[in-house]
């Protein structure tokens, strides 16, 4: 039997990030995608075509919402106007759940439009726990927070990323979106090991999984979502599915986006891993999983 998701969120199956280049295929052909993930901000502050599209998609597919501007970790006050818009959109599209990233996107009223990193220390953790609880109260639902891809490490960090995010999830009582490509990218960039990372993840809080491709720059990897998923990331995904017993999985593709058919075929590569994970039923490995460095 699979590890039960703490919030009772279902395994929605295999889904795709909804992208405008695929709108016509999705609306005209209604392909057999289990669910779609929308980028929250693409459908806020607009009353034009984007909301017309998302209303139609939501009428035929389950929707989950994934934001990039919650700015959860910022030192600035919460943006309550933004949260009100997020809440209204979630009701409009009947979002199964919604989330964002463990990061900050700007401070002092500015917005970098990037997922900027946070130090992993007690002060930042307490700040994030407090903010996550506040946001969940306002939205009246648990957040599903994603591990970011990061490119710097702070000297002041006192714990690993997985431990930090795991404690955040447990103490703020939120869900997790495990991005297995981000695990790979951050492990490559910081010299961590994916299996060690996974060992600290509270899998009962994992609600959703992201798979994606990245760009290997030689000295570091960048989370570009511009290529197929690499073999090692599939391995991490397989392990995550085995430990959860099956979680809703989204393929993200944001740059150099191929045709819908190619994107859909890439998503289908996840099916055997998901099926094997379901068969394993969320059992932890009997002995430590491989701990080879990812480089």
């Amino acid at each position: 039997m699979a590890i039960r998701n703490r919030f009772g969120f279902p395994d929605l199956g295999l889904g795709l990030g909804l992208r405008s280049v695929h709108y016509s295929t999705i609306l005209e052909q209604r392909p057999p995608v289990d669910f779609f993930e929308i980028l929250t901000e693409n459908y806020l502050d607009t009353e034009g075509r984007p909301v017309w599209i998302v209303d139609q998609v939501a009428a035929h597919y389950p929707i989950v919402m994934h934001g990039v501007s919650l700015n959860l970790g910022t030192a600035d006050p919460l943006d309550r106007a933004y949260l009100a818009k997020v809440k209204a959109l979630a009701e409009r599209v009947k979002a199964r759940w919604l989330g964002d990233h463990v990061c900050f996107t700007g401070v002092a009223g500015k917005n970098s439009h990037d997922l900027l990193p946070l130090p992993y220390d007690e002060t930042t953790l307490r700040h994030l726990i407090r903010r996550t609880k506040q946001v969940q109260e306002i939205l009246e639902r648990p957040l599903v927070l994603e591990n970011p891809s990061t490119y710097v490490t702070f000297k002041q960090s006192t714990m690993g990323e997985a431990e930090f995010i795991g404690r955040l999830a447990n103490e703020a009582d939120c869900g997790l979106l495990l991005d297995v490509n981000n695990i790979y990218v951050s492990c490559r960039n910081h010299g961590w090991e994916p299996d060690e990372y996974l060992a600290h993840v509270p899998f009962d809080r994992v609600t959703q999984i992201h798979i994606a491709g990245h760009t290997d720059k030689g000295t570091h990897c960048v989370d570009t979502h511009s290529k197929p998923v690499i073999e090692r990331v599939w391995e991490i995904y397989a392990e995550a599915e085995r430990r959860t017993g099956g979680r809703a999985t989204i393929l993200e593709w944001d740059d150099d986006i191929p045709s819908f058919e190619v994107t859909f075929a890439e998503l289908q590569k996840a099916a055997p891993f998901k099926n094997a994970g379901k068969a394993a039923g969320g059992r932890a490995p009997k002995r430590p999983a491989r701990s080879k460095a990812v480089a």
Partner: protein
Amino acid sequence: MTRAAPASVDALQRWFQAAVMHPGGAEVAAEDRAIRRLLPARAKRLEDLLLPSAQMNARERLDVYASSYFLRLRDVLKLDFAGVAHALGDDAFDDLMREYVTRRPSKSFNLNDYGADVPGFIARKSRVRAVDRRRAFLAQLATLERAVEEVFHAPQAAPVALERLQSIPPDRWSDAVFVTIPALRLFEFAFPVNGYLQAVIDQTAPSIPARMPTWIAVYRKHWKPWRARLSREQYLLLRSLVAGKPLGAAIAAVVRTASKGDSQAAREQKAEVLFGQLGAWFREWTAEGLFREIRV
């Protein structure tokens, strides 16, 4: 009441953000006095806060964020201002965008609005030499391109059908108020910027045109933005309708403006020509969905 964030969190984030947003990149930011003054307590240099990796030093790692910051915003603005980008060429457009991004950092989660100040910035602020040479043309072209973005996201309103137009009794036309859709913008330009933009879209490598007054409507139909060329009289009439004038008053205003300085006879002739065209104009505008209500 919301508790304030710890001062150490605030200080670290302000320094990190300032370094990422520095126009010179992380290496220059690391040595910039203004950025160094933001270093949190006890840190004297970037390396006191960030660790190197096996293959990159701390400055190179920070530059992954710093370099992508400008490129991301530049790419967004290039999509919104493809005509301006073509008119300036890649290097000058990058210079303009670097100037804009530096002086007008984004303050909203909504990237759709980030280009809202670009037309005004080109018109009044930019010091890029290539902009200075063509400032008036570029500002008007940017205004047109910004309008396309605005109508794309404007509130939706169901347009009235042609039957509604045809149902107005002839004796009530003068009092009729034509309420326009929110996704409509009207412009009087000193340059033929619409033709230039279309040529850019058609990839016919247009050159910068000479001055020539043009009147343009930008509106949304079937969820897509459209640009339509208007005559001066059409522009004046639609502008009066947008201002809420009843049709009779709007027509009178058009005749007054269009025949300023004309003799009485010339004015009457212009009015007659205008009256002769009204039916076709209103049928076309209604078919294009420019009116959401006709109040009689």
